C-alpha cells in the first residue's frame, strides 16, 4: 500500500465514521443505489460465478448497510464479476449491480484494501495500463506480461502450456509477433494521455485521493 493510498484510506474512514453506506454513496460508482436493495437474492442466484465467491452482491449490499467496511473492501467477490450483466437485468429494483460491483472493486483497489495478489485485480490493472499506453490494446504484450507476472520460470511454463494455441492463432493471422515492437496505437497519444490525466485528476479530487 502506498502512502497516498494509506492517507486516503485513513481520511475517508475517519470522515464517514460509522456510516459506511454514506462513504459508498459518495465515492463508489453508482453507490447511491445501494440502499434500494430489498434483499431478494435474485442477483446471487443469477451470477455465473456464484459458487466462486464468498459474498453475493445481495450480501455485499447488506454488509455495506451494516457498516462492515473492512469485510466489504477486503472481499474478493467483486473481482469475480465477469461483466455478464445477468444480475443487473434481473434485479426487480433495477439496481445497476454490475456497475456497483465494478465501483466497489475500483474503490477497494485504490484504497489498497482489495485482496493482494487477486488474479483478476492484477489482470485488470495490467489490461488498463496496456490499453492506455498506446491508446489501443496490444494483445501480445498483454498476454506475455500476464503469463510472466509471477517471474521467469513460471512464465515460461505457462507460456509453453499455451504454445500450441499461440501458434494456431499466429497461423490463422490472429496474433502478430511483431506487436512486441509496438503495434497499433492512436496518433494523438499526447492528447489521449492528457484527457486521461485530467479525468483522473477530477475524479481523485472528488473521491479524496488527491494528496
Amino acid at each position: 500500500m502506498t502512502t497516498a493510498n494509506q492517507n486516503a484510506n485513513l481520511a475517508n474512514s475517519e470522515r464517514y465514521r460509522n456510516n459506511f453506506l454514506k462513504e459508498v454513496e459518495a465515492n463508489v460508482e453508482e453507490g447511491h443505489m445501494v440502499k434500494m436493495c430489498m434483499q431478494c437474492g435474485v442477483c446471487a442466484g443469477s451470477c455465473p460465478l456464484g459458487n466462486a465467491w464468498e459474498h453475493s452482491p445481495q450480501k455485499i449490499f447488506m454488509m455495506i448497510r451494516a457498516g462492515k467496511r473492512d469485510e466489504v473492501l477486503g472481499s474478493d467477490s467483486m473481482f469475480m464479476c465477469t461483466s455478464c450483466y445477468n444480475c443487473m437485468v434481473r434485479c426487480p429494483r433495477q439496481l445497476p449491480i454490475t456497475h456497483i460491483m465494478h465501483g466497489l472493486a475500483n474503490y477497494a483497489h485504490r484504497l489498497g484494501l482489495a485482496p493482494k495478489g487477486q488474479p483478476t485485480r492484477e489482470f485488470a490493472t495490467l489490461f488498463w495500463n496496456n490499453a492506455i499506453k498506446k491508446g489501443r490494446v496490444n494483445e501480445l504484450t498483454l498476454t506475455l506480461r500476464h503469463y510472466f507476472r509471477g517471474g521467469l520460470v513460471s512464465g515460461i511454463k505457462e507460456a509453453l502450456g499455451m504454445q500450441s494455441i499461440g501458434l494456431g492463432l499466429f497461423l490463422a493471422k490472429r496474433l502478430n509477433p511483431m506487436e512486441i515492437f509496438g503495434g497499433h496505437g492512436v496518433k494523438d497519444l499526447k492528447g489521449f494521455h492528457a484527457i486521461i490525466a485530467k479525468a483522473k485528476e477530477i475524479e481523485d479530487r472528488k473521491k479524496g485521493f488527491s494528496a
Partner: protein
Amino acid sequence: MAKKEYAFYPGCSSQLKASASNYLVSTNSMCKSLDIKLTEIPDWNCCGASVGYCEGGELPRIAINARNFAQAETHLPGQDIVATCAACWLSARESKERLDGSAQLLKETNEALAAAGLHYDGGANVRHMVEVLIEDFGYDGLKAPMKKSLEGIKFAGYVGCQTNRPFGIVGESFENPLYLDKMVETFGGEALTGYDQKVTCCGGALAFSEPEKSQKQIRDIVESAYDAGAEMIVTPCPLCQANVEVYQSEINKKQGTKFNMPVLYYSQLMTIAYGGSAKDAGLNGQLIRAEKLEKIAGK
C-alpha cells in the same frame, strides 16, 4: 452513393492480425454486399473494455469513450457510431447514457476532453452492427442479396452476454433472444432453438485471470451445443468467439473431452450466403475449421 453510411468503431481486437481480425474481414465483405459504407472513426481509441473499471475508474473510462464520440461528431457528422465488438458497443453506449443523463458528468468529461482540444455535444447514436442489420435492413432486407443457402448446417446461436444485456436488441428478451436464430434461418441454416446455453457467460476476461472458472463456463457452452445436435456455433461477440473456440483444446487436454466445434461470426455466415469466398469470410482465421461452410463457399 452507398445505401447506408456509418461511423465505424472496429475496436482493438478487430485490427489487422489481432484476435478478431477475421470478424473485420467478414464484416467488410458483408457490408459490401449490403451496400453499407463504414468509415473508421479517425484515430479511435480503446473503450476500456469490461475489466477497465478496476484501475481506470469512472471518469477516465467515460472520457476515453467520449473522445471517440467527439472524433466521430467532428469528422463524420450525422452518422451513427457502429461497433462490431460487444464490449466496445457496451462501454460506448453505457458512457453515452451516463453522459446524456448527467449534466455534471458531461461538464467534467468536457473538461477532460478540452485537454486535447476536443468537445462532445451528445450527438451521435451508438449502435451495434446487429442492431443496424435488424433495424435498418430487416430480415427481408438482409435476405435480398443472398446467393447461396446455408441449408444442411445446424447452428447453435450463442448470443452470450454483452450484445444481449443490459441493452440488447429492441424487442428481444434477455432470457431467450431470438434474433441470431432468425438470422440463421434467413440464410437457410437450421437454428437449434433447443440450445440451452444461448445466453451463458463465457467468463469474459476471467478466461485469462481465472482460467479454471472460465473454462467451466466454456465447457457448458460447447457441450450443450453438441447435446442440441449443432455442427457449428455462431456468435456476435469477439470475446465469446475467441474464448469458446480457443480454449476447446485446453479443455480437451485437461478434462479428456473431444471438443472440435467451429465457432463463427454471423458476418462470416452472411458473407458465404452472399456468395463470398472462404477468404472473404475470413474462414482461414478459424482455429477449428468450419469445413461445411468452406464447402458451400467453394460451390
